């Protein structure tokens, strides 16, 4: 087993992980819930729930519902705020024995900058993931990071300040995803997380009410897998040197293999973790099995191995 473990290690250009399988943002609780359900040392990295500058109480319930092959949810980014997070949750996460990536989000440039400055030098912090799908409070737009110039401004500011690698989690609603990816990488993002959950809604015909207390929410789960694959594939061809973390629809080793073949450097497991807390470990095991069977030496060898028809090397679609 030692050999298999070694062969799963990945290097995200300076950020080394024991396996390329992480827990996606919002699926790891407060740092104490996973203990007892899974050996966190066997997870490549844990992305925390998105932290805001001030505490957020979040949305009214119901906050979750099932859809065919997916879930829709809206927590309203409930979190205790950065100060309480740094005092209580991050030290707990730091003991998990794995890399901790803190997800930050906000509605103004100032919020992102202050969050980044407060995170600097904190023990246990391996990287920052910048979530860009909150409403833009300054420019009064529904999704802050869907606009190129705004995403560049925010990610650039965070990346310039941060002493640890910064991953930009791109919104699913971007009109030109590749252009957005190029922009934020040029602005200083170390890597990209593709994609954030798309906006979604459910309706209960019986009660004539929306399924979620917040009316609209986000779609997660296996339903997203083809969307994620396309995003990873197109962005990876445009930016082959940029570490890409694939998130959305990964629940098995096979899914992880497909994401890596499409060009991802690592994967994040979200919804599957809510169902089976050991899912990230199982995904890594499935990936290891595939590598062994197909005689690949490491996950990195899968990247870009997808055999595409000649002619697809040209400029990528948006």
């Amino acid at each position, binding site marked *: 087993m030692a050999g298999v473990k070694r062969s799963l290690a990945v290097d995200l250009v300076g950020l080394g992980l024991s396996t390329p399988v992480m827990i996606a943002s919002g699926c*790891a609780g407060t740092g104490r819930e996973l203990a007892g359900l899974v050996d966190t040392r066997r997870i490549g990295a844990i992305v925390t729930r998105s932290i805001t500058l001030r505490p957020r109480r979040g949305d009214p319930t119901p906050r979750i519902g099932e859809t065919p092959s*997916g879930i829709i*949810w809206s*927590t309203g980014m409930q979190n205790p705020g950065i100060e309480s997070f740094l005092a209580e949750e991050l030290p707990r996460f730091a003991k998990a024995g794995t890399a901790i990536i803190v997800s930050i989000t906000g509605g103004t440039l100032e919020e992102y900058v202050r969050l980044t400055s407060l995170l600097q030098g904190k023990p246990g912090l391996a990287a920052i993931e910048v979530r860009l799908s909150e409403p833009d409070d300054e420019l009064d737009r529904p999704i802050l990071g869907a606009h190129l110039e705004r995403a560049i401004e925010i990610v650039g500011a965070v990346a310039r300040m941060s002493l640890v690698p910064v991953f930009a989690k791109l919104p699913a609603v971007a009109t030109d995803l590749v252009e957005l990816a190029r922009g934020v990488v040029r602005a200083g993002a170390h890597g990209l997380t593709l994609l954030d959950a798309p906006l979604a809604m459910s309706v209960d015909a019986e009660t004539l009410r929306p399924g979620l207390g917040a009316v609209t929410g986000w779609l997660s*789960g296996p339903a997203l897998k083809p969307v994620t694959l396309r995003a990873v594939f197109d962005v990876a061809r445009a930016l082959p040197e940029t570490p890409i973390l694939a998130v959305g629809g990964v629940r098995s080793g096979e899914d992880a293999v497909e994401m890596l073949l499409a060009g991802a450097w690592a994967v994040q497991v979200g919804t599957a973790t809510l169902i089976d807390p*050991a899912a990230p470990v199982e995904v890594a095991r499935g990936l290891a099995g595939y590598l062994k069977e197909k005689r690949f030496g490491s996950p990195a060898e899968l990247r870009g191995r997808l055999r595409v028809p000649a002619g697809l090397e040209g400029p990528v679609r948006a």
Partner: protein
Amino acid sequence: MKRGRAEILSTRRLGAYHSITLVAPEIAERARPGQFLAIQMPEGREFLLRRHFVIHQASRRGGWAGTLEFVVDPTGPGTAWLGNTRAHEFLDVIGPLGKGFSYPKRLTNCLLVAEGHGAASLYFLAQELIARHKRVDMIVGGDTLERVFKPVEGKRLSQTIEIVTADGSLGDRGSVLDVLGDMADRCSTEVLYAAASPPTLERIAAFCRDRQLPAQVAIEERMGCGFGLCFTCVVPVARKDGSGYDHLRSCVDGPVFNPARVLWDRWLSDAPIMVPTPPEGLPVVRSWPG
């Protein structure tokens, strides 16, 4: 909290409900009334999330030692699938989850109010209270005869019991709220426990507030994971010092709450988005047990 594959020992139909008994010694050993299980759904179906069921019975001693019983109300595709499982099949179970009921130290007269499948956890609680030499009285209700859970078991466990159905097919016609005042007077109730639908719980909370009755209620809010990861099953609960309220996860901070601290209007509001925050004048509540 343990996770494992548990074999189904037996399944039974109980009126509208299905009762499933599992062989799960590690969970049964730790289980307390009010706690629940998270059961994984089969692979390859459209429904993904675990389903959550309150523990009806956990046997630590005797011939049934190591078994665990829970009750399924088959209302959706996931619960219907569970209702059709058979003995010797295996389920992936995580439990016991959540904070269960606590027992009063000094007070003795307990009134247990159950609606529908809520009785499942309260019968377990009744046994534990009786073992602690408390007096147990019950109000058990349901829409129809079929939806009154194990009325005979209720009679066996309680000093006095009032059974009500909405259509009058068993016991008196009405709801548990109609007989609440009478029962509390007649039984000199000192402590109240309830497991019922949210609107009923809200009325029970008001009743307990008026009468200054210490109480605990088991709430049901829609859950994602059941073990604290996803922050979806939250309930607005006032802080002890009255400085505001927090959205507490019913899976780790509940599902049993002190009803005096739950902000019912906020939780159950028809137009939740329109409710202004924060509220004025939150109740200051002494800590349980009273």
